[in-house]
């Protein structure tokens, strides 16, 4: 493998190292779940409700069973009684989760609700037979619009007694009356964000392989969390965790959609022992858009109070979120993050919130990159609206209110303490990269010729790397094998986050070996210690901690063996270039291979007290409860006021993610998240009609950004170390948080001569033309 030169010899962390994942992925050698093929494997296809809400009167499976090649047709009566417990470790057993029958039982609650499961010798036959399953539905009035769901008579979950999942309140609006009464300016608006979704290019999928002879269940999964899949499955089936092995080599993107076990996946786990041979289920794109979950879809009434100089005095958000029929997980506590984070990286002395979550007969809510990002959308869009109404430049308004370094740590008004961030620095850097004054001049010239350019800015501060509970630790096993080759075993698993490369870079530097001599084995619960997976922008920091802890143990052992062999003091030995040598005498020394030979095959030659072998496992416990990250996004665009088309021209992100382990990976994560956010602002809409029929179930209707639309993204970096290992921070989610408000603000700025206020997403051409025509 060739690598670009490291910053200094032997240093891989910080360099734009080529990814170790790439060779297999570029040549068709990856192993995604659909690439797994086992002897006698059968194929599964779900029968799904075509109705948003319907009573299931009867299911006739005879015709489907009669199709040659069909082995099983399961309904709720066959599958659901197998459930022992179903809860996710991050939520705990006491979480008031929505009851989740694996297959719909008695009532289908969204169009796409799984009603029956056909198992056949090929997917073609399974799909044929699924069409022959006759379900007698009695359509019922559906709750489609979450904004009126609280008032409708129909209930999504009769047993819950209300369409309100729950509500969490911070400081109430009434307690802020004094602030808003005394304010020089109060700006309020209702801002609405449509449903869109993670849409990984690979949908969900599982291969389950239960062996009756051994009682062992092996699961190949498209997942971000192999260990959680195993834990969940053990509880679901009531079989010991160590009888289950979950394997994921390559997962084709997740972005949050694959961090929890969904009902469809539960079905496959439950039928595995009944089928007795391997079964594969890989959803198609229609199923992914119908049933894998939606995100966003929310609105809020919000208001900001300012003094006469534009200093923010108070902020309040009344937030309402659509959770569909089967949100996973319980959405109430996560919705509160929207309220808690609403003040953002600004000096906001007083704040309050209320957050309400609503059931509807639509696909359930699932996690998506920056699940709380509405707080940034709402705040940043309202700041621009405020600036316009107060006659202050939106840049100047932010500059007056952004937190300065000398104010840190800063407790926001909702009790969150920010530290190790640099909001003013990323802001000024991004604006300098743009040349804000020059853009304003260009904009004025363009307007004079009937062209409408706009600039939008957003700032956010984001909690990455949760350091508590389920998420709070990460283990690494490192084996320097008898040949001297290094293997790092860590939960990880490639989902596009480059975590294999990250681990190899970290381990190479920690042990002083060349990167080519380090391999990593991930995503297999049988051979890696528990880890909470790729979620919460945690992998970089937690993995760095795990590698640090374990390599510390091994370094000590290598140094002791080498010192003994070289008859030198331990303090005089250094590890570099795959050798242990006496400092200042680079020609001396012993290779890792020689040290491994001593450690494994000549244990009698080891110094007293040093164990044989070069293997170690250690578990890192998070140094901090949360690692804060901040960034500024700047977008410029041109809006064609005749067609409503938005052309994004420049896009700048200045991010403070601490020191970068690999700048390519950091920028890749920022770019990917940013383009997802641009998609959400302009194109993507997981839409339903008024009867609850999904109307975006193909890529002809659900519009992802393509290479033809995306701007060139320009990156700026500010480096404020975090309190975590290496000072690293999480960078996986931020792009998707910062982008929508920057784009909306750019469009609104472009349209400012028309006096319109942009409050509804997506900003499709039709939406923009309607705004201009209003």
């Amino acid at each position: 493998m060739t690598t670009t030169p490291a910053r200094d010899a032997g240093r891989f962390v910080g360099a734009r190292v080529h990814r170790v994942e790439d060779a297999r992925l570029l040549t068709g050698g990856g192993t995604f779940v659909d690439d797994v093929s086992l002897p006698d494997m059968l194929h599964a296809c779900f029968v799904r409700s075509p109705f948003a809400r319907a009573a299931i009167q009867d299911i006739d499976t005879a015709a489907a069973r009669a199709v040659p090649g069909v082995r099983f047709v399961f309904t709720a009566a066959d599958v659901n009684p197998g459930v022992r417990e179903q809860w996710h470790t991050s939520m705990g057993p006491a979480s008031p989760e929505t009851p989740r029958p694996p297959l719909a039982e008695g009532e289908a609650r969204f169009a796409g609700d799984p009603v029956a499961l056909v198992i056949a010798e090929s997917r073609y036959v399974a799909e044929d037979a699924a069409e022959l399953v006759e379900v007698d539905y009695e359509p019922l009035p559906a709750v489609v619009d979450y904004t009126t769901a609280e008032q409708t008579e129909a209930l999504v979950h009769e047993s819950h007694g209300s369409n309100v999942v729950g509500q969490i309140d911070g400081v109430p609006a009434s307690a802020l009356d004094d602030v808003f009464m005394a304010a020089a300016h109060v700006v309020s608006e209702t801002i609405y964000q449509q449903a869109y979704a993670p849409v990984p290019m690979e949908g969900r999928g599982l291969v389950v392989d239960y062996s009756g002879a051994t009682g062992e269940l092996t699961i190949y999964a498209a997942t971000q969390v192999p260990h959680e899949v195993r834990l969940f499955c053990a509880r679901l089936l009531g079989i010991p965790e160590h009888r289950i092995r979950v394997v994921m080599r390559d997962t084709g993107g997740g972005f949050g959609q694959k961090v929890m076990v969904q009902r469809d996946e539960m079905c496959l786990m439950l039928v595995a022992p009944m089928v007795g041979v391997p079964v594969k289920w890989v959803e198609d794109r229609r199923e992914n858009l119908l049933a894998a979950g939606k995100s966003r879809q929310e609105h809020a009434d919000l208001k900001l109070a300012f003094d006469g100089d534009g200093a923010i005095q108070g902020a309040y958000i009344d937030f309402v979120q659509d959770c569909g029929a089967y949100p996973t997980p319980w959405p109430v506590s996560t919705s509160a993050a929207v309220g808690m984070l609403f003040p953002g990286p600004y000096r906001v002395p007083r704040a309050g919130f209320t957050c309400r979550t609503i059931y509807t007969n639509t696909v359930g809510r699932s996690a998506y990159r920056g699940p709380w990002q509405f707080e940034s959308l709402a705040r940043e869009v309202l700041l621009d609206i405020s600036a316009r109404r107060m006659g202050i430049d939106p840049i100047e308004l932010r500059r007056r209110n952004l937190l300065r370094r000398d104010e840190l740590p800063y407790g926001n008004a909702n009790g969150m303490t920010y530290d190790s961030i640099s909001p003013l620095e990323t802001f000024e850097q991004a604006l300098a990269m743009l040349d804000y004054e020059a853009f304003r001049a260009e904009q004025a010239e363009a307007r004079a010729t009937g062209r409408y350019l706009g600039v939008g800015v957003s700032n956010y501060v984001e909690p990455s790397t949760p350091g508590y509970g389920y998420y709070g630790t990460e283990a690494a096993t490192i084996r320097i094998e008898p040949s001297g080759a290094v293997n790092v075993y860590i939960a990880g698993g490639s989902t596009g986050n480059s975590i294999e490369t990250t681990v190899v870079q970290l381990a190479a530097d920690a042990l002083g070996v060349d990167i080519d001599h380090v391999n990593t084995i991930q995503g297999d619960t049988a051979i890696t210690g528990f880890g909470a997976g790729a979620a919460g922008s945690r992998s970089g920091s937690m993995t760095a901690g795990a590698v640090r802890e374990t390599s510390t143990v091994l370094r000590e052992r290598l140094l002791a063996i080498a010192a003994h062999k070289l008859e030198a003091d331990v303090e005089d030995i250094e590890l570099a270039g795959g050798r242990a040598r006496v400092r200042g005498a680079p020609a001396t020394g012993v290779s890792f291979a020689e040290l491994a030979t001593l450690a494994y095959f000549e244990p009698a030659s080891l110094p007293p007290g040093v164990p044989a072998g070069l293997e170690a496992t250690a578990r890192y416990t998070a140094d901090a409860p949360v690692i804060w990250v901040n960034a500024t996004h700047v977008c410029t665009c041109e809006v064609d006021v005749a067609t409503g088309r938005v052309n994004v021209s420049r896009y700048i992100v200045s991010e403070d993610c601490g020191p970068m382990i690999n700048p390519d990976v950091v920028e890749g994560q920022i770019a990917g998240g940013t383009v997802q956010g641009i998609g959400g602002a302009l194109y993507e809409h997981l839409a339903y009609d008024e009867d609850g029929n999904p109307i975006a179930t193909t890529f002809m209707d659900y519009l992802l950004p393509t290479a033809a639309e995306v701007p060139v993204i320009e990156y700026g970096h500010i480096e404020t170390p975090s309190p975590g290992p290496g000072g690293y921070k999480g960078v996986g989610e931020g792009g998707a948080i910062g982008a929508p408000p920057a784009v909306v603000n750019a469009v609104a700025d472009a349209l400012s001569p028309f006096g319109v206020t942009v409050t509804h997403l997506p900003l499709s051409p039709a939406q923009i033309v309607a705004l201009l025509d209003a």
Partner: protein
Amino acid sequence: MGEVSVQMTVNGRRRVDTVEPRLTLADFLRERCRLTGTHLGCEHGVCGACTVLVDGAAVRSCLMFAVQANGAEVTTIEGIAAPDGGLSPVQAAFRDCHGLQCGFCTPGFVVTVTAFLRDHPSPTDVQIREGLSGTLCRCTGYQGILSAVRQAAASGRDGQP
């Protein structure tokens, strides 16, 4: 369902099989030939992940039946690298430019770009963007992919396998 015989050359190797007429070329390649690098992202002809070369033309193998490729010469992602395993200029450019993350869409991009640069050895930026616009990626924001195509084009080679 009646089966029909089909023969084609896949990555230089002759394949003879008997298939249902409805078997897609993608499933034939993935399941019969065990060439699982060709990925299915939508089975609708939109995402381009399943793109292969059929007699040199980049086609969506999810929209084509195996029997329609009867007698054809097919190149999949597994046939793009040099026989000694060395990455093609397009593959190397994707690696150099961080043009892939999860790697699921990557085979479709590599095959598409390989054909595109053969036909447009000195593409403009607009041509590159149009040439890629029928292939979807959800991870990279296309930044590394666009750079990779520019690099592969600029390398002065035509990117042919």
